[in-house]
């Protein structure tokens, strides 16, 4: 499928991007009879954007469906979203996503996506999240296969650098492919090429020097080039450049593309300290899956953007094993030395913490009654003394999966301009518009929900626009 791009041809639809949202849009439009060109900037082995790293879709359902247990009604989903975003969400668009997730799975299945029971260590998600068999890369592979079968033209390592936009109308896109510049002409365009998390200069612009200590957990191919063009050409933006899906990951992870395995799930079982060996947030605030996504920002707010998750032997084996082995020592002093923080300070912090721990019945599956008293910040659940050697430490850095600064859309996925008018033939889907729903915070599996919903809507609406 890597022939020379047919630059003479005017396609019905150009899809910029090659992840879940892009593929959903391309497939929907193709099914509606459109000719479709899809330009993916990554090389084939890394195709699929951040969808490669995902594993599930957060789905509403009124009764058990497929692998989903019990019910996850729209209202509960909405309240969960409201809570993590602190209200920074467009309710109408959000509810569009929620409703869509109830009915989109048969279509996904038709295009080769398979679901499986929740993975080990994720039983708490069996009610809310439908897991892809083999994870997100398997989903991406299935969609690409379907796209090839249906005759969608796909080019890898095809980077879009500019868009010819005339007022509210898209004309063509400029892209480089195999060293040459080409024009892609189409009657409509779906922009589904992600955020800008891999653009370290842009992150530095937004965050200042702390950005130098960020790691990019997501794909290195989302550099935000198209987003920048859109902003320059009058798109109305949403959310801001400092917001994103940012979790605390192991500081030893690679700069890019570490994916899910770099996460450290030990936080709620111990304490987290900064480089001065001071605690800075309630580690037991809520269940880890509901809280993991705030720790990236929390660590980003600490000096030198580093934190240390510290647990004792009692916690070992109670959380998903991270990819990097813990730093281990038989005393807190030795552990501090190995972590290169002050042994005196760490001993003092742990002593104060241990003294504040009240007796309780530890149960990691519920919000138990193991709490601290008289220290700030408190630990409000699962607070056990750190008293059983060996002690373990994981160094933490902010790890950005994707950024939320994006373009505003309406419920037909049409991009909105600064004058609040929708474009005629420009649609956006996926992370480039996720900020409409997720102004901040994160809810496990909602990225794929947004991408699938708006990808499918964008494809459908683009087809309607082109074919009437």
């Amino acid at each position, binding site marked *: 499928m890597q022939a020379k791009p047919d630059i003479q041809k005017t396609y019905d639809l150009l899809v910029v991007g090659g992840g879940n949202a892009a593929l959903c849009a391309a497939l929907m439009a193709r099914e509606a009879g459109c000719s479709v060109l899809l330009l993916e900037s990554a090389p084939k*082995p*890394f195709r699929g954007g951040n969808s*490669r*790293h995902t*594993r599930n879709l957060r789905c509403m359902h009124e009764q058990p469906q497929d692998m989903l247990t019990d019910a996850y009604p729209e209202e509960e989903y909405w309240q969960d979203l409201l809570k993590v975003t602190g209200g920074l969400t467009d309710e109408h668009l959000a509810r569009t996503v929620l409703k869509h997730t109830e009915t989109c799975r048969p279509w996904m299945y038709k295009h080769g996506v*398979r679901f*499986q*029971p929740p*993975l*080990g*260590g994720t*039983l*708490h998600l069996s009610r809310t999240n439908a*897991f*892809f*068999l*083999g*994870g*997100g*890369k*398997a989903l991406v*592979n299935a969609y690409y*296969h379907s796209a090839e079968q249906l005759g969608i033209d796909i080019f890898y390592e095809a980077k879009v650098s500019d868009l010819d936009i005339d007022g509210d109308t898209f004309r063509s896109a400029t892209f480089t492919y195999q060293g040459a510049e080409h024009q892609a002409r189409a009657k409509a365009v779906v922009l589904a090429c992600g955020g800008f998390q891999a653009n370290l200069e842009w992150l530095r612009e937004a965050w200042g020097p702390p950005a130098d200590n960020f790691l990019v957990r997501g794909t290195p191919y989302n550099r935000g080039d198209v987003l920048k063009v859109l902003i320059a050409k009058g798109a109305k933006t949403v959310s801001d450049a400092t917001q994103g899906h940012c979790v605390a990951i192991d500081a030893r992870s*690679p700069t890019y*593309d570490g*994916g*899910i*395995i*770099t*996460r450290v799930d030990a936080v709620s079982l111990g304490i987290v300290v900064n480089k001065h060996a001071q605690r800075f947030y309630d580690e037991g605030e809520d269940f880890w899956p509901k809280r993991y996504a705030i720790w990236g920002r929390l660590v980003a707010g600490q000096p030198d953007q580093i934190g240390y998750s510290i647990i004792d032997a009692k916690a*070992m*084996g*109670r959380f*998903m*094993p*991270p*990819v*990097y*082995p813990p730093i281990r020592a038989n005393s807190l002093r030795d552990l501090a030395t190995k972590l290169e923080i002050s042994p005196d300070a760490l001993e003092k912090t742990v002593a104060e913490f241990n003294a504040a721990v009240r007796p309780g019945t530890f149960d*990691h*599956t519920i919000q138990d009654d193991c709490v601290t008293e008289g220290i700030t910040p408190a630990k409000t659940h699962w607070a056990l003394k750190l008293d059983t050697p060996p002690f373990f430490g994981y160094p933490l850095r902010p790890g950005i999966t994707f950024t939320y600064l994006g373009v505003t859309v309406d419920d037909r996925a049409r991009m909105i301009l600064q004058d609040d008018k929708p474009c005629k033939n420009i649609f956006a889907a996926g992370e480039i518009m996720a900020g409409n729903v997720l102004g901040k915070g994160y809810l496990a599996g909602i990225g794929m929900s947004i991408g699938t919903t708006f990808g499918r809507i964008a494809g459908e609406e683009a087809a309607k626009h082109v074919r009437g």
Partner: protein
Amino acid sequence: MYAAEDQPMSLDELIEDAQRVLRVCNACRYCEGYCAVFPALARRLEFTENDIHYLGNLCHNCGSCLYACQFAPPHEFQVNFPKLMAKVRGQTYRKYAWPGFLGALYAKNGVAVSLITALSIGLLFLLAGALNNPTAFFAAHSDAQGSFYALMPHNLMVNVFGAVSVFVLIALLMGFVRFWPYMGEDLADFFRPRALGEGVHDALTLKNLGGGVENEGCTYPAEQKSQARRMFHHFTFYGFLLCFAATSVATVYHYMLDYPAPYPFWSLPVLLGTVGGIGLLIGPVGLLWIKHQRDPDFKVPEQTGMDAGFLVLLFMISLTGLGLLIWRETGAMGTWLAIHLGFVLALFLTMPYGKFVHGMYRLAALVRFHLEKRRPVPGLASE
């Protein structure tokens, strides 16, 4: 996809690399739905050499996990799980072989199997030739004359194949007896009926080539799910079983009913052997064909000889057996008989030192999987 590092590694180097890769897999677990390997590894926090030998033999090399792997080469984590497990498996065959020095036959297994085959055929010709004058060897015999044994006295055949069989059985058993406890299991536990039953069921149905809950097949030879490998393996395995059944029935006829071979075409041994033989033609050819087509990322060149040697041997046994059936009343019978028995002898001789052992170790690993799944996970909290 780009092929990963392709240097042949020693078992120690493989174990070290496997420990690295298994940490990645255990922190990810996206592949849990594909087969038994991933639930098995999720029971562990650390991976000892024993664990890796176990997981290596539990892996059926279906390929699903590599296609689904976000950390597969060219990603810097360089995770190519099926290939790594194939290499581990190959090394375990060598390690557990008995007597140990014959494990060296795995080093260049294709060559070893070919040489043993050539020698076996030669030996059979010598035997048949030494016992007969050329006229008798090339004469046309009618079935009624007990033609096979006219050339190859029954007792001699029984003595040669009997002795070899006993040795083969001992060698295979010794391999098992070394492997099973190394996984940390008591010998008696192998015979626990439920786990054994489930293990045998999985082996007979090749459940782990189903690709997960929907049983749509595995990603072999290419990325799209296919039942090809399962089907050709069934042809091979059940063909082999039917041929084995044919021999067993014939043995009963010979000793208990005093009814010596050759048997008419519509007799039970010949029918079983013919049907099984056809399976043994289709199966190995199919397996070789899809193996050849397979994505190069999976290929372990140093093991091609072992895999191909075994399949070619099975195919040739069947081909010569059917040839013998067709031409048994002609002057070519002696030649067919010697060649056929030569291939059979070679299969027997190489059974403990060739690809055949995969069945035994895989079954052991599957039974172990079903034993283990009933036990609480040590050191891991349940959710």
